[in-house]
């Protein structure tokens, strides 16, 4: 059983049978009083978030063994997403909810990490940065030097985001999958 000293970002613990991940934590010690750790936890199956405050030294739960398995994203059909284990060639299906926001950044044949808990796939972990193609945006404006000015663009996945004015349709960009924001243009 882990206690509060084990709390760190991305620690995975079991609470009421579900795996939860520590998204954020803060040590709080009001003057002349006992110390606490305030945490923000995310349920790795449902995606629900909750705040939980632990007294220093309090038991927080068993460590959750969430396995990462490298998989290839094969295709999406309706609300079902099919993946293949790169080692065993076994195929797994994930629902729209389980895939979550990751669908905005996945293209066919992309390699992703699927998360397994108790032998069942529960979600995906994308690389922090992925390269995606812009399918639609206004043409680049020459000579426009306004720093920070942006325009809307659509990616091959259908995801919409803002990009700098100098980026053209058909070009590839790096997107931060954690924030969904443009990072830089890449030459292909």
């Amino acid at each position, binding site marked *: 059983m882990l206690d509060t000293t084990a709390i760190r970002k991305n620690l995975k613990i079991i609470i009421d049978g579900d795996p939860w991940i520590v998204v954020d934590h803060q*040590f*709080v010690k*009001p*003057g*002349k*009083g006992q110390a606490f750790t305030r945490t923000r936890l995310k349920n790795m199956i449902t995606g629900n978030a909750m705040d939980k405050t632990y007294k220093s030294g309090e038991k927080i739960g068993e460590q959750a063994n969430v396995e990462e398995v490298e998989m290839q994203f094969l295709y999406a059909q309706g609300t079902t997403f099919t993946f293949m284990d790169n080692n065993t060639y076994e195929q797994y299906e994930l629902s729209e909810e389980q895939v979550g926001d990751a669908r905005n950044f996945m293209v066919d044949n992309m390699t992703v990490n699927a998360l397994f808990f108790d032998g069942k796939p529960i979600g995906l972990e994308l690389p922090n*940065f992925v390269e995606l193609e812009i399918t639609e945006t206004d043409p680049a404006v020459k000579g426009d030097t306004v720093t920070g000015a942006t325009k809307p663009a659509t990616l091959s996945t259908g995801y919409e985001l803002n990009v700098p004015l100098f980026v053209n349709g058909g070009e590839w960009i*790096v997107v931060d999958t954690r924030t969904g924001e443009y*990072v830089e243009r890449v030459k292909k």
Partner: protein
Amino acid sequence: MRGGTSSPNGFPPDLPAVLKRRHRIIKTIRTFFDDSGYIAVETPVRVFCPGIDPYVAPLSSGNAHYLATSPELHMKRLLAAGLDKIYQLTRAFRRDESGRFHNPEFSMLEWYRKGADCRGMMLEAEALLRYICDREDVFRERYAFPFLNISVDDLFAETCGWRPSTDWNEDRYFRDWAEKVDPFLESVDAVFITDFPAPLAALSKLKDQDSRICDRIELYLNGVEIANAYSELTDLHAHQDYIDRVMQKSTSLGKHVCAVDAGFMDAVKKGIPESGGIALGIDRLVMCLLGEKSIQAVMAFPETRL
């Protein structure tokens, strides 16, 4: 932009600039005290009694010694020895305190003035902050002076719906502080929190007009506790009562109990003069002034870089 921002030796690239600004702030602080009649003093870091607080754990330093959790006890001995206005910039050590606003070893500014009370000490802390902000263009607009004031009762009534001075409940108080009061204070630039409940008096006096409240004030900047001021306890029996309560509490919590130094008790018997005292966290203050998110960002060697 992508990946880590640390240089090969593990220091953030902006550390030299941060340390220069930290140095300027500390230099200004010393000038403030040197120019207003304060004497800079030094007290031991390695001591027998590291402090009197059941919730602050000391670090052992071998041979029955500990590292001081604050310079309070020795500075009060200097007050009793006849020094009227003293300040000290020193290191303090607290075990198991790690986080964005905590590091087991940190820098503390503590000062005492004979004849003052906690309100007077806080006004002096406010004057010190104004003095620092006036000397650096980048700090000039950071805080609006004078600072706001709110009592603990009003703060709890606002954020938790109850009043600690009339319905004291220690567990509820600290949990509510951690879960509700602390997040609320993050939205406030600068505020004095006044009128703490008597059970949290520590070595401060109780109010003459209302013994449910003690003469203790805390300063919060950007949701972080920066300073804590007392009208210092002088009465011998009140000291003995407090020490007995801390001993009982520590024992019931299963914590190690250090006997209070005979030297400190002698000073109390001889007479600590009516005075005000205040401790201020230097790392936190620098963090707030520089707009950083953690005290580690303004320290050359936090525990993660030892």
